[in-house]
């Protein structure tokens, strides 16, 4: 098997350069690549275009990169819960492209599946359709949406093996597998890195062929955005 292990987040992201396009997995703060984001903040790389469903909160996740003004453009479906984000957006420092969530996910998948474009009805008749090709199939209109083209995809998995196979846990799966397929270079951070043979081949969510670098992350905070409970 091919060994894809790097020692840590710093090494994994070392050739990410100013102006690049990154995909970052996660939904809200769930399943985000915490270690890699911290390393990007430390490295101080900037002018980034970030494709991520959300933009973190003020002091966690992509919010940390926004605070250091590393992000030129966010491509997301929902960007609430972030005062600094709002300030930069309203002042024109930050560009934002809002995309329907399913379109976002499917444009990632399209890249991973070598399909240059997909058709979706999401956004037909809305401002999302502006400038896009509309096509009717079986009496229904669809927008043609293009596959993403990202320099790096950075994802967070639960377990991974040294040859890059990934398993995600619960709803921390979300965008991670589709982004893992879509990066020109894909970096995976995992909670537990194991040897080949320790993961059941039938249970792999992302086959190692899609993953170029893998490392075991540390100190996962896994912050909860909306703690909701019921009483016993």
């Amino acid at each position, binding site marked *: 098997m091919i060994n894809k292990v790097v020692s840590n987040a710093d090494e994994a992201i070392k050739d990410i350069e100013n102006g690049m396009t990154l995909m970052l997995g996660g*939904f*809200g*703060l*769930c*399943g985000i690549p915490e270690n890699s984001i911290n390393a990007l903040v430390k490295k101080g790389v900037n002018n980034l275009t970030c494709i991520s*469903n959300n933009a973190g909160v003020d002091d966690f996740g992509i919010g940390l990169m926004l605070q250091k003004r590393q992000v030129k453009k966010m491509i*997301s*479906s*929902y*960007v*609430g819960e972030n005062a600094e984000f*709002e300030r930069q*957006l*309203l002042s024109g420092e930050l560009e934002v492209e*809002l995309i*329907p*969530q*399913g*379109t*976002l*996910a*499917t444009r*990632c*998948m399209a890249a991973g599946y070598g399909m240059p474009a997909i058709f*979706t*009805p*999401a*956004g*037909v*008749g*809305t*401002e*999302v359709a502006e400038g896009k090709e509309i096509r009717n199939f079986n009496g229904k209109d669809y927008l043609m949406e293009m596959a993403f083209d990202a320099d790096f995809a950075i994802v967070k998995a*639960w377990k991974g093996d040294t040859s890059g196979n990934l398993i995600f*846990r*619960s*709803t*921390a*799966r*979300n*965008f*991670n*597998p*589709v982004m893992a397929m879509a990066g020109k270079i894909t970096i995976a951070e995992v909670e537990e890195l194991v040897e080949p043979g320790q993961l059941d081949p039938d249970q792999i*969510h992302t086959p190692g062929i899609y993953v170029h670098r893998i490392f075991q992350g540390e100190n996962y905070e*896994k*912050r*909860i*955005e*909306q*703690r*909701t*409970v*019921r*009483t*016993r």
Partner: protein
Amino acid sequence: MLDKNGIAKRIAKEIKDGYYVNLGIGIPTLVANYIPEGINVVLQSENGLLGMGPFPFEGEEDPDLINAGKQTITTLPGSAIFDSAMSFGMIRSQKVDLTILGAMEVSENGDIANWKIPGKMVKGMGGAMDLVASAKNIIVAMQHVNKAGESKLLPECTLPLTGIKCIKKVVTELAVLDILPEGGFRLLERAPGVSVDYIKSVTAGKLIIEGEIPEMDV
């Protein structure tokens, strides 16, 4: 006149045995509390879960297990987890039987606006555009009028659209209405104690009243 729970309770009656249902944020989330006994329903959360259960008991929250509103939740036996592409794949292929979501405006031809107010900070459409463009069966849960007292059931939406010709039914604190294929809100039921005339007075879009309008049974 219904409160939010009343709206949720009325909508819950629309759910049939064996339905897969997607519940939006706000009033729609409350619908889960009123699903009738004996009705088997599976809740889909578009971040990648079928079989969403109630909130966890205190101390049992799992940061890896949230719903589309980013709330900590639980799964029920028989649940399944999947990625975001498959989640919207099943939405797009109309495997979800019923979608319930909130709205700022609905028009008499079934257009909906619920994601953007010009001049205000825009947070994004999330999965709403995918849901309204794909679902075969959408119910809007909302207040009949906005905070300024203006009708939210309009001849045409004034806010940026989320989707067109997609809404089939609206449940408000005052009424249940369906939207006819040829256009127009057809009044089906009124909330207890609410008169047809009052509903008329707060419905700006074309209102169709056929015969006696019964009170809701909630």
